């Protein structure tokens, strides 16, 4: 105890060094995350922004992005919610294998996803000839955009939904059954309401991911204005000729993404 008083300044110095050692990389990381967005916001003048929004690429791309992502996310929710419920409930080897399987797209690079989608559904692909026989040609069509978005976005919803369903207390489900409720009623009146924050968060994540989808869409669906050119592809195209249009589109995307982030956080807090 008597020596601790003498050591205290030394420890203070060491604490300061330790704090600095931690703080400097942290500040660099925050800068790396925030500065690009600041650049996007600060270099835009309102008049330039208004002009950019009137660029002929913007309208069709915005419409197409909203249309395809709404369809993709709606499908992901409708098909993914029951799937997530089964994945959360099946404690078998098959269930675990399936869970890993549907998570794979998360780690697949977008370019690889594009090639994979082409090899599966392209005209020369695994299922292409069969699809062509029934009159369906997916590549370079709007449905191809939706398919690419589902491929990259669904795992984000599924992960959130499976986690949320796993957190639902088993006793609540058993009690609900004991009160005369069948599986369907228990699912809709107990499991889904209790998992709702996780489902909303997962859906918002999936939507953000679908909205940003670029690489797989470019390779599998192409870059055709009004048919497959979503907002990220429009930025890419506009950048070649008109920086202000690219910036305007980028700001639209960022505003939507930011709104979704707020929705995720609101969902998580409930």
């Amino acid at each position: 105890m008597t020596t601790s008083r003498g050591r205290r300044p030394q420890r203070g110095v060491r604490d300061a060094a330790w704090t600095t050692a931690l703080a400097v990389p942290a500040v660099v990381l925050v800068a790396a995350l925030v500065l690009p967005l600041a650049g996007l916001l600060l270099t835009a003048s309102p008049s330039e922004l208004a002009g950019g929004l009137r660029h002929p690429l913007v309208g069709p791309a915005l419409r197409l992005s909203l249309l395809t992502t709404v369809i993709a996310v709606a499908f992901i929710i409708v098909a993914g919610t029951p799937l997530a419920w089964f994945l959360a409930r099946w404690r078998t080897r098959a269930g675990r294998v399936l869970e890993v399987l549907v998570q794979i797209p998360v780690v697949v690079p977008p370019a690889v996803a594009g090639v994979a989608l082409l090899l599966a559904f392209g005209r020369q692909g695994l299922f292409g000839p069969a699809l062509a026989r029934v009159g369906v040609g997916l590549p370079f069509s709007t449905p191809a955009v939706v398919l690419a978005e589902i491929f990259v976005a669904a795992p984000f919803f599924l992960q959130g939904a499976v986690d949320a369903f796993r957190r639902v207390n088993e006793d609540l489900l058993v009690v609900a059954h004991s009160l005369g409720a069948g599986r369907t009623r228990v699912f809709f009146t107990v499991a889904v309401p209790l998992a709702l924050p996780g489902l909303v968060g997962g859906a918002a994540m999936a939507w953000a991911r679908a909205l940003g989808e670029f690489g797989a869409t470019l390779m599998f669906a192409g870059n055709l204005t009004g048919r497959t050119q979503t907002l990220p592809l429009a930025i890419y195209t506009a950048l070649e000729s008109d920086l202000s249009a690219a910036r305007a589109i980028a700001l639209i995307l960022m505003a939507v993404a930011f709104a979704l982030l707020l929705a995720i956080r609101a969902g998580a807090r409930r």
Partner: protein
Amino acid sequence: MSGGGGAGGDALAVAVAGDVGGGLAIDVAFRAGGGAPVAIVGPNGAGKTSVLRMVLGALRPARGSVVLGDTTLFDRARGIDLPIELRALGYVPQHYALFPHLDAIGNVMYGLAALAASERRARARAVMQELGIDGLAARRPRELSGGEAQRVALARALARGPRALLLDEPLAALDVGVRRAVRQSLARDLARLALPTVLVTHDIADAAALASTIVVVEAGKVVQHGTPAELAAAPATAFVDELMATATVSLPSRNHT
């Protein structure tokens, strides 16, 4: 078996066996008559809750049968396994498991889906009134005390008019201060309802106050059953001996309250 002898009505006859994981093999038989509640008592990990879940239908026994009055709920040999929702058993799990997204009356109404919407609320209110908790109707589960939550969970289980009651550690979540009062009102309710009742507890004082027969389970097997007095007079194992030794402190104090 000495545990029967109810005041008429249904009796719940249970004989269940099977592995429940963790190296625990259940093999338990008992009979709960109306108005003669059975308490399953035993150390932690003895399989008490597993037995209750087998009766309920949440866990499937490998062998045995569960018969309620003239209805066979489960019979392995005859291939009968009624789903939980058709067994008409009132179940109050440990920690009560109230639906957190519904208010108290919403919880009580959950089991009344078969009634018309207008009757549902009236029936729920009547059951809550009987248990003295009609004032809690609009409260959320997180706003209820332990004792209140227990009453709401009991009201929820009773609202459908179950043919038997299963209570898992009905008093364990309560602190000592309210435990005695809640225990007494639960004992009065059980006597009034006169339903075949099985309750699981690790506390011999709860068992003695609420049940007329105590079934002591150790490592999945029944080691002794009888009235508290019978158990105290001739404990079959060291655990029962120790259990009844602690009970002698609390049993007389129960009698003069």
